[in-house]
């Protein structure tokens, strides 16, 4: 019944609109404005353009200012400082161009609207002006390219030797973490060795693998103030590691390990104080579409003071893959199964939110 009423009122509305349109057409035929080339609507539209400029410009400035705090993510990495400052510098440059060109575009449109008896100025070209406005953007671009190169080269340079290595492996639909243990070397892996218990496909015969140990299911730890090298890979489809607070992003590609290194500058508890949010956690998200649970591939990264990190490390180092996989395969199978179901349940819970 209600559907019928809604349908009827929509129909009625459409009929009214149609009648209004017909009346407008007939009225303009009656007034003869259909025969005129350029009527009052030209003035109206020119005025609307200038109004649009001011209203939308004001809306833009207001909404930008209003959202500025919400949109700037707190920063917690060293290279992020360079990225952020370059971002806002570039924003200022393009903001200037944006405002200047829009002022010209809308004001010229308004000012040079049709006037009876006036004639446009025949001005087909001016090579000098063309050269000027080719060279200026070229110079500005060159400057931006140089500063971009400098930052990019620094960020993508090889990681320092003392970097703390952490492996992040993406799979549908969660992240798995592996630490290299005391030797700081990750053991050999092979996808054919993967099964329900050996989720990484670790080759247990490899000597580098002997001291490797897994991270916890929902979070992993890194120390503050030292280079952290993320070794990134995927075992099924492409994922992408995104640590928004650290300005870190790198695809996880099956068959092609990638890496990204950075220096965390604030511990989780420092960030909790800074943001005034005691619940604050650094989150790792997936930014390459990877299937149904793409939006729920969440992992928490805990940044510790180096001493705390060492303490945590000491508690973990005994839980190596070797002991877990060889000691009681059945138990650990159950444990892993529980882990993956809990993650899956998390995804489902998020989905139904």
């Amino acid at each position, binding site marked *: 019944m209600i559907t019928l009423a809604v349908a009827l009122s929509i129909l009625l509305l459409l009929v009214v609109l149609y009648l209004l349109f017909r009346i407008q057409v007939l009225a303009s035929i009656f007034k003869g404005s259909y025969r005129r080339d350029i009527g009052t*609507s030209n003035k109206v539209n020119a005025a609307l353009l200038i109004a649009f400029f001011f209203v*939308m410009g004001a809306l833009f400035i207001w909404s930008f200012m209003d959202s500025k705090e919400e*949109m700037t993510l707190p920063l917690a990495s060293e290279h992020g400082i360079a990225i952020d400052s370059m971002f806002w510098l570039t924003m200022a440059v393009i903001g200037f161009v944006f405002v200047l060109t829009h002022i010209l575009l809308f004001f010229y449109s308004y000012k040079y609207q049709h006037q009876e008896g006036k*004639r*446009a100025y025949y001005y*087909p070209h001016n090579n000098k002006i063309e050269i000027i406005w080719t060279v200026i953007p070229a110079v500005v671009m060159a400057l931006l390219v140089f500063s971009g*190169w400098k930052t990019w080269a620094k960020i993508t340079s090889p990681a320092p030797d003392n970097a703390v290595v952490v492996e992040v492996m993406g799979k549908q639909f969660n992240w798995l973490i592996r630490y290299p243990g005391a030797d700081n070397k990750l053991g050999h892996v092979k996808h054919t060795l993967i099964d329900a218990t050996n989720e990484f496909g670790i080759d247990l015969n490899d000597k580098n693998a002997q001291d490797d140990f897994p991270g916890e299911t929902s979070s992993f730890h890194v120390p503050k103030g030292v280079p952290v090298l993320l070794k990134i890979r995927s075992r099924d489809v492409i994922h992408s590691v995104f640590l928004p607070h650290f300005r870190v992003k790198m695809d996880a590609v*099956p*068959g092609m390990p990638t890496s990204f290194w950075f220096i965390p500058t604030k511990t989780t508890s420092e960030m909790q104080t800074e943001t005034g949010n005691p619940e604050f956690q650094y989150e790792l998200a997936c930014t390459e579409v990877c299937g149904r649970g793409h939006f729920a591939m969440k992992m928490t990264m805990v940044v510790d003071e180096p001493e705390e990190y060492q303490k945590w490390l000491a508690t973990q180092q005994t839980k190596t893959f070797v002991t877990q996989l060889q000691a009681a395969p059945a138990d650990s199978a159950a444990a892993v199964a529980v882990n993956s179901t809990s993650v899956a349940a998390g995804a489902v819970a998020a989905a139904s939110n």
Partner: protein
Amino acid sequence: MSSTDISLHKDVHLEHDDHHDDHHDQSFIEKYIFSQDHKTIAKQFLFAGIFWAIIGGTLSSLFRLQLGFPEATFTFLEPLLGKWVDGGKLNPEFYLALVTMHGTIMVFFVLTAGLSGTFSNFLIPLQIGARDMASGFMNMLSFWFFFLASVIMFYSIFLETGPAAGGWTVYPPLSALPQAISGSGAGMTMWLVSMAFFIVSQLLGGVNYITTVINMRTRGLSMTKLPLTIWAFFLTAVLGLLAFPVLFSAALLLIFDRSFGTSFFLSDIYVAGEALTHTGGSPVLFQHLFWFLGHPEVYIVILPTFGIVSEIIATNSRKPIFGYRAMIGSMLGISLLSFIVWAHHMFVSGMNPFLGSVFMFLTLIIAVPSAVKVFNWIATLWRGNINFTPAMLFSVAFVSLFISGGVTGIILGNSALDIQLHDTYFVVAHFHLVMGSAAFFGLFAGVYHWFPKFFGRMIDEKLGYVHFWITFAGVYLIFMPMHYIGIAGFPRRYYTWTGFDTFNKFMDMNTFITVAAIVAFAAQFIFLFNFFYSIFRGRRATENPWKSTTLEWTTPVNPGHGNWPGPLPVVYRWPYDYSKPGAPQDFIPQNVPYSQTQSSNLPHERDTE
């Protein structure tokens, strides 16, 4: 080649509404369905493009509902979407399918086929003074291959396992493994088959456009006297001809990986409890191949509108386009550069960072010719005598959107900044403004401007204004806030962000965007009404309603087969002699010889009298 059949068909019939009785006689089919007339084919592309745009827009409204109201239940969608809505909740895989199909449809079926197909077909012969395309038959095939591609793509939406759902970029392994997402089953197969036919269609069309522009210009029409529209369509066709075969190869290799066990893009995969045998492939190789088309593709989308907008701004400002040669030069520059910037889509794909720095450099260069174009458009407005037709408003707005979306390209083209912004809503905002909305505005401008030539009637201006203002405001209200969300790091293709504390904000903003998107989409129905109403009941057009200089306006109101009833027009001058000092009228058509315009000839033109 050119036909000598010059009879005029006064009455305008359109294939879509002519459902006569059963006895379709041969001539009807030849005239309206399997027509080889470029004007009819252009209209076929236009109607197909409009159909696809409605589908693409509807899909976007559906996923915007999910993003704007993640907590809501959409039980009212159940009759429409069936099992894809479970208890009022959109299926997350279906959400990805919506996003994927929206992208595919808008980029390829609307803004490539619908835009180039319509305007290149319609305007190339009319503006260069040719009777028809070089090969009418190939041209017809081009549409029907597109039609076939459309049918297959449309059918795939209704598959039980859903259409392709791995994003419009269809990166393998996700797109190669039905175990990874159900859309990669039959849906992806149909996507690939459809795209293969689509590419065939593009190549048939492209060869035709290029041949026609090179060989069939009328007497006197040198390349430096061509309207900018034709330059734009010509370069678009060249880009398509060079880039689409690479997509074809990528699609072919993907078909091999999916169905015949090869490992071009697959390596070391363990999925759904099983280790696959593929080794040695590289998913990044697919990205290189895809973006080698994909980047020129965005210029295939935007270049035709460069031409359309240049033409409309010059005509309605009653001024020559400023820097005609610079406009051609910048289009040439953009076309060339568009082939060597593809890897800026892949800064964080794991490719060698050195490549990243090369592609950053090349990408930022492309800003220079783009800036030149903007300055030239603005300079054309300067001291003009502007007539704000709906087409002109859409063109001015095009320049605005092109600037707004273009400047953020300078940020995204910078590899260091792209680390944070890659695959966030900043990218979504950027390309929706610069190639989505801007290209759509160019398309609308073209439809409003050439409507009298298409259908012999005028499209209603007032409704055009209403359509324009709602759309213009709507587009900015949708995409400006998306930048904020992008700066905050919100990733693309997320079903919902509520699972993350980092992204658990901007709820109102997303709701606002959804409302704006639905209002803007609804406004398009004003255009649809106006379009179809005016085809039949619009005011009758005159031969040259905009007092334009180009050759299409020298044809009869409803040009027949062969376009000009008499001999082909001869061209004497460039297409932008507007408001020339000394001329009695404020425009001199291209086919007026200098001997007839002695009062307005410039010194260097005197010897051609």
